[in-house]
């Protein structure tokens, strides 16, 4: 039992932390484009942080749940609703059979992640469930999800400890101008001093030639010493490749493992969501940081993940998760207004009361 798709949306695929270990055979890593939203989703539903979830792009699918489970929606705000009621983002939600998940207008960001406790019932290919569309591997038959597809749950959870506490502040993706911090290299010496200055001071626009493989930018030409060709070498997630024409292309999750164009810099791990959640027309600026600073930021993010996992797993008395209020209201044909939470102590017992104004 799992999820039945009434429609697939624009581009909905199964993605995990990526297909590592096969780059030496030329198999791209793939995996979640926004690694932070992806990991947070898994932490919220108690999964291993690399468990496969759904990557939902711009226009979401319409999905009917055929089994109860705990799910969480992170990443872009694509106006998700559960049974017609706005579904909270960055919060574990209990769903039951017959519940209907739908999406509306893209509000901010590009890619949302739907994590389901226990993951999906699909076979890994080369150690990963990530969909790599070009080679038609991973996910559901190596393709995006569409009408009448079914995705089974592998080990669904009726509930989770501290369900009502499993929430984090949603990340804000509404900015249309972003600074991407980069570590210079590996071929920053293939550019002139002026070229490097242009790159770090110029304003670039995300073009519509942007997909899971890479994002082409429009903006001032970055000058090479000679040209943009090198003897092919390896490419990291976030590599800023600049071919001879001088316009940057940021290499993303489905990037090829190796390539023959100069790479001036690499977007640091914690800033990857700033490019993968951007849309055509958004403005990008680059700022150089040291490898030490980049790794400090990386480690701070790791620490935050670990702390969240601990806080979700810690025993907090017997705080029982209420059925997600929105669902109960919807069942009554009502929609919920603003939600307030109270902690009440009665006879030594701690109660958490969720109060929501009802609009009929």
């Amino acid at each position, binding site marked *: 039992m799992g999820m039945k798709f009434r429609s697939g949306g624009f581009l909905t695929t199964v993605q995990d932390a990526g297909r*590592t*270990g*096969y*780059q*030496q*055979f*030329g*198999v*791209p890593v793939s995996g979640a484009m926004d690694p932070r939203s992806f990991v947070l989703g898994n932490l919220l539903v108690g999964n291993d942080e690399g468990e496969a979830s759904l990557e939902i792009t711009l226009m979401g699918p319409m999905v009917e749940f055929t089994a109860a489970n705990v799910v969480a929606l992170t990443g872009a705000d694509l106006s998700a609703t559960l049974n017609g009621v706005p579904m909270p983002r960055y919060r574990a939600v209990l769903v039951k059979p017959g519940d209907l998940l739908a999406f509306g207008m893209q509000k901010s960001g590009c890619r949302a992640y739907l994590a389901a406790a226990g993951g999906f019932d699909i076979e890994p*290919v080369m150690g990963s469930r990530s969909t790599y569309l*070009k*080679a*038609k*591997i991973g996910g559901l038959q*190596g393709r995006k999800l569409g009408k009448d597809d079914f995705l089974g749950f592998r080990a669904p959870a009726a509930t989770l400890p501290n369900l009502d506490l499993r929430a984090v502040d949603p990340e804000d993706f509404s900015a249309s101008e972003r600074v991407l911090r980069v*570590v*210079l*290299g*590996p*071929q920053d010496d293939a550019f002139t001093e002026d070229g490097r200055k242009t790159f770090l001071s110029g304003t670039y626009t995300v073009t519509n030639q942007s997909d899971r*493989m890479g994002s082409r930018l429009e903006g001032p030409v970055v000058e090479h010493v000679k040209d943009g*060709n090198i*003897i*092919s*070498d*390896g*490419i*990291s*997630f*976030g*590599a800023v490749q600049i*071919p*001879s*024409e001088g316009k940057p292309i940021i290499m993303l999750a489905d990037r*090829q*493992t*190796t*390539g*023959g*164009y100069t*790479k001036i810099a*690499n*977007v*640091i*791990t914690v800033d990857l969501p700033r490019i993968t959640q951007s849309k055509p027309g958004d403005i990008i600026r680059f700022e150089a940081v040291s*490898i*030490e600073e*980049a*790794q400090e*930021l*990386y*480690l701070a993010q*790791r620490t935050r993940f670990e702390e969240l996992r601990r806080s979700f797993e810690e025993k907090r008395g017997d705080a029982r998760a209420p059925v997600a209020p929105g669902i109960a209201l919807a069942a009554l044909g009502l929609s919920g207004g603003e939600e307030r939470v109270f902690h009440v102590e009665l006879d030594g017992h701690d109660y958490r009361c969720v109060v929501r104004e009802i609009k009929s």
Partner: protein
Amino acid sequence: MRDVRFLLTGDTSVTVEFGNEISGGINAAIRAFNIALSKSGIDGIVETVPTYRSLMVHYRPEKIRHAELCEMMRGLLGKLDDIEIPPAEVVEIPVLYGGEEGPDLAFVAEHNGKTEDEVVKIHTGTEYLIYMLGFTPGFPYLGGMDDSIAAPRLKSPRVRIPGGSVGIAGTQTGVYPIDSPGGWQLIGRTPLKLYDPGRERPILLEAGQYIKFRAVDREEYEAIGREVEQGTCRLHTYAKEG
């Protein structure tokens, strides 16, 4: 160890560069270093990606930081002796040259002041060492192409190139295993599938083998294509002499 450089490729990988040319010597050093690294047991290394002139090392900064990893790798660079080289096998790749399948053959010929037939004769006259696989699943990067048929990459990559296309970029030649974007000059196409996820061995070629291209006419190209579709196509291989 010569002039090995550690190049920054972001905060979760580092590229160890052994040189800036395509040479058997550099490739052998990279292979040796890759084996030494895998035996070193350094904690935190996720995977390594050998290329013509460098080894990209992916790692977890929560296990090992950049400076510490580079220091340990510097130590390993002195121990690159006695690495076994696997016996070489030559794999024959049938190719239909020119026409719709090789739209840039005319450019490559003109660029080098040759006829198309001369380019084909030179291209099929060599056994090419597979230095590495990369770019897309199973894409073989080959060494040993004759400089007299070299041609520059396209200034801007094509958005879509059909799987099986055989191309030239600079002094490199290769075959696209699947449909993909790319900037190589296309001179022909093979009916073989270098990559097929439904096959027992998804990737046809491996590093250390050699490739020999063989020119075929359209009739044979189509016949082999049908065998590939039916799963009855057998690879022609022979042992490399010398």
